[in-house]
C-alpha cells in the first residue's frame, strides 16, 4: 500500500466540507432521486474528471473501506487509476479491482456485471444531473417541473425519438423514475445497466461536481425506465458473446483491430472478463494466448 501523503486530512477534504457533503447525502437518501444542491469544492483535478464522485467518495470513506474505481467498466484506464491512487495517497484505504470485495465502488458510466450486495455503496460520477436540462435550459423551470412532478416533456422527447427513428433512440443516460416520484438521470451509463438500478441491494449515490448536485437511490428502491406501452423499454442486445471470455448477457465494447474492418467485441467490465478467463472460459478470439495474465504485484 502507498504510504499516506503527509499534510492532507484523511481523504483529502477538510472536515467542514465533509460535513456539508454528508448533510446533502442524508437529504438525498431521504428524498430518493431529488437533486440536493451542495457547495462543490475545487478538487485537484478538472471538472469532468469525476470531481462530484470524488467528493462524495471522500465524504463517505472510512478507514476500513475497500475502494474500487472503474472508468467505462475498466479498472485500468486513466480516470480509474488516478482516482484510485488519489485515495491510496490521501486516505490510505485498501483498494481492489474485485467487485465483490469492494465496500465502495466509484464509477464512471458503468455498473459492474457482478451483482452488487447489501452493504456496498456505488458512487456515480455525473456530468449533467438534470435529465430535463437539454429540453429546458432554465434551472428555475426544471426545478418547478420536479416540484410539480410535471414530466410530460420527457415523454414528448422519447415520442419524438419514435417518430424520427421508429424506436426510442436514447441509448445512454436513459431517464428513469425513482420510487414513482422523481425523474432522474442515471448518469451516462448505457441503458443496458438501467435494470441493475431497480431494487438493487446496494446504496447508490450520485455526485455532480461542476453542477453542484448530489442525489441518491436507497437500496431496494423501485427504479423504472420511462417507456410507452407499445414501445416498451429494452436493453441493448449483442449478436456475439465476448471474444475473450465468451460471456453472454453482458455489456460489450467494440475494439477496432485493423484498417480493413476487423473488430472484436469484449466485456467492458475488465474485472468480470478476467475473472471468467481465470475460471477457464475462453472466447473465440483468445486463440492460444494465456487465459489470464496476472497483474503486477499489488501496489
Amino acid at each position: 500500500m502507498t504510504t499516506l501523503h503527509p499534510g492532507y486530512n484523511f481523504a483529502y477534504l477538510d472536515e467542514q466540507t465533509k460535513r456539508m457533503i454528508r448533510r446533502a447525502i442524508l437529504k438525498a437518501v431521504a428524498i430518493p432521486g431529488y437533486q440536493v444542491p451542495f457547495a462543490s469544492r475545487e478538487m485537484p483535478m478538472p471538472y469532468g474528471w469525476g470531481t462530484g464522485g470524488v467528493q462524495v467518495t471522500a465524504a463517505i470513506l472510512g478507514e476500513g473501506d475497500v475502494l474500487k474505481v472503474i472508468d467505462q467498466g475498466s479498472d485500468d484506464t486513466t480516470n480509474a487509476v488516478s482516482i484510485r491512487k488519489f485515495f491510496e495517497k490521501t486516505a490510505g484505504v485498501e483498494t481492489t479491482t474485485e467487485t465483490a470485495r469492494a465496500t465502495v465502488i466509484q464509477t464512471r458510466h458503468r455498473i459492474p456485471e457482478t451483482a452488487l450486495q447489501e452493504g456496498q455503496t456505488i458512487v456515480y460520477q455525473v456530468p449533467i444531473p438534470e435529465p430535463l436540462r437539454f429540453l429546458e435550459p432554465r434551472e428555475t423551470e426544471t426545478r418547478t417541473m420536479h416540484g410539480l412532478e410535471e414530466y410530460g416533456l420527457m415523454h414528448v422527447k422519447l415520442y419524438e425519438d419514435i417518430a424520427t427513428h421508429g424506436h426510442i433512440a436514447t441509448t445512454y443516460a436513459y431517464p428513469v423514475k425513482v420510487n414513482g416520484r422523481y425523474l432522474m438521470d442515471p448518469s451516462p451509463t448505457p441503458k443496458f445497466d438501467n435494470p441493475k438500478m431497480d431494487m438493487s441491494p446496494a446504496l447508490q449515490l450520485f455526485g455532480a461536481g461542476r453542477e453542484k448536485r448530489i442525489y441518491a437511490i436507497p437500496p431496494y428502491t423501485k427504479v423504472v425506465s420511462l417507456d410507452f406501452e407499445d414501445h416498451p423499454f429494452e436493453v441493448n442486445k449483442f449478436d456475439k458473446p465476448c471474444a475473450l471470455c465468451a460471456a453472454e448477457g453482458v455489456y460489450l465494447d467494440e475494439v477496432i483491430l485493423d484498417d480493413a474492418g476487423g473488430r472484436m467485441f469484449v466485456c467492458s467490465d475488465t474485472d468480470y472478463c478476467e475473472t471468467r478467463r481465470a475460471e477457464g472460459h475462453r472466447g473465440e478470439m483468445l486463440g492460444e494466448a494465456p487465459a489470464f495474465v496476472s497483474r503486477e504485484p499489488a501496489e
Partner: protein
Amino acid sequence: MDTLSPAHPHSLSGFARPVAESQSTFHAAMMALARPGQRQTLAASLTPPAPLSEGVAALALALCDFETTIWLDPAFTVSDEIASYLRFHTGARIVTSPAQANFALVGETAALPAFDAFALGTLDYPDRSTTLILQLPSLDGGPPFALSGPGVAGEVSLAAHPLPPDFEARMQANRAVFPRGVDLLIVAGLSLIGLPRSTSIRKAGG
C-alpha cells in the same frame, strides 16, 4: 484556570478521534436513512452533559457546524449546559424556533411538537427541512409499527418507546406531503434507527 473546572460544559469532551468518529457516526446515520427500521450502531466515545446521551451528541457533533442551526426541546434546555456544549464543539447556532432548525434534538419524545412546527422544506427545495434527532430510552417494547418503502425489502418493524400516541397519524401526514417533510433519527444509547420521509408506516398486527 478555575474557569475550566471539570463541571464546566466546555471541558466535557467531544470525539476522541474527530475524523474517524465523525465518519463512522455519519455512516451509521446514512445507513439508518438508507435502510429504515434497520438498527445501526454508533461507535463514539464522548462525554456530553446530562441528559444529552452519547449517541445524540455524536450525531450532533458529526453533522453540525457553523452553517447549521439546532433547536433543543425543553428537556434539553433545563440548563444552558447542553446548548453551551453544542456551541463549543460545533459552532452551530442554537435557535428558539423549531421552524428555523436544520437539526432538532428532542429529549422528551412523548411531548414531541407537531411536525409542521418544524421546517418541512418546499416543493422546489424539499431538502430545506429539519432533521429530528429523538433520544429514547429504548428501541424496543413500544407498540409495533410496520415500515415499508425505499430501503426496505418487504416490511420491517419498529417498536421504539415512548413515541407520541398519534405517531402513526403524524408519520402518515408526513408521508403525504412528500417530497416535503421531516426525517427522523431515533436514538437509544448507541443504537440508531432512521425514519426518512419516504417511509410508509402503519400499526402492525392491527
